């Protein structure tokens, strides 16, 4: 079912935590709310669940206004970061609890519990208590409990954050598959960009209670709306250079290079992703630099280059070999350079590009 948040504000006392959240999640969509710790993601999710009242604004599930509706009448299911399994109930009882509250007849209930348990591969564990399960199994119980009753909306608050890296990767693909199979609208909160990029149909990036950009993972990565999004997405993070723009050239402390954007302005930040840069000979580079350090990451090498006071990371081939302080050149395509207003953080786009997109 479609979920609509319009102009949601939330304050705790004098502290504004969510500021004017506008979001529409389409029926069956997997939307990920991504942002740094403390930006208000959990608060936003809890308002959709009804665990937190809104200070102002409206929440619609489908066509129904649920702004002032108790959680139990909202028909949403939530997976908590802590899983929140009922420790005094077996796995089967945990999964059956929402059905029991809805007075589903026992036979039907058992069938539904078995079905949900099978979906998350928990059949052998139905008689165990949560304390007898591993973290990954507990997480799957929480998932099974959420999906057993086919809610209108799934809400998930960092459900994978307590798992180790390998299990997290595995559960990520399971989760994606389950959501696609069930086709239930899902809002998923995380601060892990990999989770966001891999799971989401669309990602909403939040910072300090404000949504910065809502777009598909590809768009977020290739066309960040502002400095925050550009810096938040990508690992290793985008390189930023402070400088000014004049006559189609970006000038910074120790260098300059042509960019495809006209105009004259000061306080401009240029951003280039490490993977869009290549190291060449000093004479062939658009910027000349020195090697500051190199780190072998396995399948690639990160070369940190020093340009005067600034540093720039280049993602190079795993076989790359450079000496410390070796003079090198760095090259990149015009299209790989993003320009931002340093003060507002807004993207400075080239006329041509804007026209092309329109």
């Amino acid at each position, binding site marked *: 079912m479609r979920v609509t948040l319009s102009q949601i504000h939330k304050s705790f006392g004098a502290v504004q935590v969510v500021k004017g959240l506008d979001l529409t999640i389409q029926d069956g969509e997997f939307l990920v709310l991504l942002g740094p710790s403390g930006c208000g993601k959990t608060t936003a999710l809890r308002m959709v669940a009804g665990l937190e009242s809104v200070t102002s604004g409206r929440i619609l599930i489908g066509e129904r206004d649920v702004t002032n509706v108790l959680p139990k009448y909202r028909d949403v299911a939530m997976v908590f970061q802590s899983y929140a399994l009922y*420790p005094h109930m077996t796995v089967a009882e945990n999964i059956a609890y929402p059905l029991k509250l809805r007075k589903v007849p026992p036979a039907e209930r058992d069938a539904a519990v078995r079905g949900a348990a099978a979906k998350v591969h928990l059949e052998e564990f139905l008689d165990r208590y949560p304390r007898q399960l591993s973290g990954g199994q507990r997480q799957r119980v929480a998932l099974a409990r959420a999906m057993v009753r086919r809610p209108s909306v799934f809400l998930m608050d960092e459900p994978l954050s307590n798992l180790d890296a390998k299990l997290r990767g595995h559960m990520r693909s399971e989760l994606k598959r389950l959501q696609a199979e069930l086709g239930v609208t899902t809002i998923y909160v995380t601060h892990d960009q990999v989770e966001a990029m891999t799971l989401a149909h669309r990602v909403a990036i939040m910072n300090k209670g404000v949504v910065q950009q809502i777009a598909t993972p590809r768009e977020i990565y290739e066309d960040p709306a502002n400095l925050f999004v550009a810096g938040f997405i990508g690992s290793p993070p985008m390189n930023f250079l402070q400088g000014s723009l004049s006559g189609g050239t970006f000038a910074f402390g120790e260098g300059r290079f042509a960019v495809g954007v006209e105009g004259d302005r000061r306080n401009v930040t240029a951003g280039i992703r490490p993977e869009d840069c290549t190291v060449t000979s000093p004479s062939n580079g658009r910027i000349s630099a020195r090697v500051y350090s190199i780190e072998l990451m396995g399948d690639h090498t990160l070369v940190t280059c020093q340009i005067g006071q600034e540093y720039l990371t280049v993602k190079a081939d795993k076989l790359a070999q450079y000496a410390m302080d070796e003079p090198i050149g760095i090259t990149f395509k015009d299209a790989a350079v993003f320009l931002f207003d340093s003060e507002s953080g807004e993207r400075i786009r080239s006329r041509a590009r804007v026209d092309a997109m329109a």
Partner: protein
Amino acid sequence: MMRRLFEPATVEEQAPAGKVVTYALLALWSLVVLVPLYWVLITSFKGPGEVDNGPFYIPFVDFTPSLEAWDFMLLQNYTLGPYLNSVVVALASTLLAVLIGSLAAYALVRIRFQAKLAGVAVFLILLVAVIIAVATFGVQWEVAVAVAGALFLISLLTFVGRTRLALGNSDVEFWIISNRIMPPIVAVLPIYVMFQQLRLLDTQVALIATYTAVNLPIVVWLTRDFFAGIPLDLEESAEIDGASKFRVFFTIALPLVRSGLVATFLLVLILAWNEYLLALFLSNAKAQTMPVLVSAQNTTRGPQWWNMSVLIVVMIAPVVVIASVLQKHIARGLLVGAVKG
């Protein structure tokens, strides 16, 4: 060598010297606890002669045990009545106190109360006014209550809402515990008069109501920490799953604090079972409880130790049984597995 005495061999163990001290203290304390019990037990098998000529401690050697006192108290005297009274009053009042008290404690932990101070003041003033009007001016109580209720409502709707000062949860909690600060003897007379007016003196109902009220603060204060220890996530999850607040309380919160609740139940049960002062005032024949009966054995002919001992033995027995049965339920670690990996 000396070090060896004062340092444990492994981290889980005590040092040898510590062990000796611990067990010596435990043995001493066991003696302090057990000797009176032993004394009561053997005294119940003595007669006036053995008690007065004593002290005798070893049955069959020092004295010949007899069942005379047992026969007298249990068969010739009507002990069963007070015994049943004690059972009914203690069980009923404990169940009520634990039920109401845990509900109150849960509410105090999970719901934020903000009673306006002005509203409380108006209520108290009106209450006093009603009492004076009814008691000294002979106003019909229905009329007085109706008028006061109307005035209270009007004050709520008009100025009380605009005042700032309010009582919070901690004030309510303090008020509850303050009920126990005053020694019960102070409250005994008003309580007596109240039940006299209600014609409930010497009934089980009066004792149950009084014990419930007296033990409520203890239950609230013991259980509020148990409830506060439940991760909020669990209850919120249950609410999203479709449970009402009462459902959450009975299906999630209560089972999770079971062990604490059992301990509380046991403590309150023992308090009610042994209560003497209030029972002395509020009952005389029909509703008499065991502690009163025990002290009644202190007759004009002097204390009848043997009879008293019989009563004490039959009084202790069920508590020992209940305590050992319930002990199994006072298990720890019930919350393990609720949260996190």
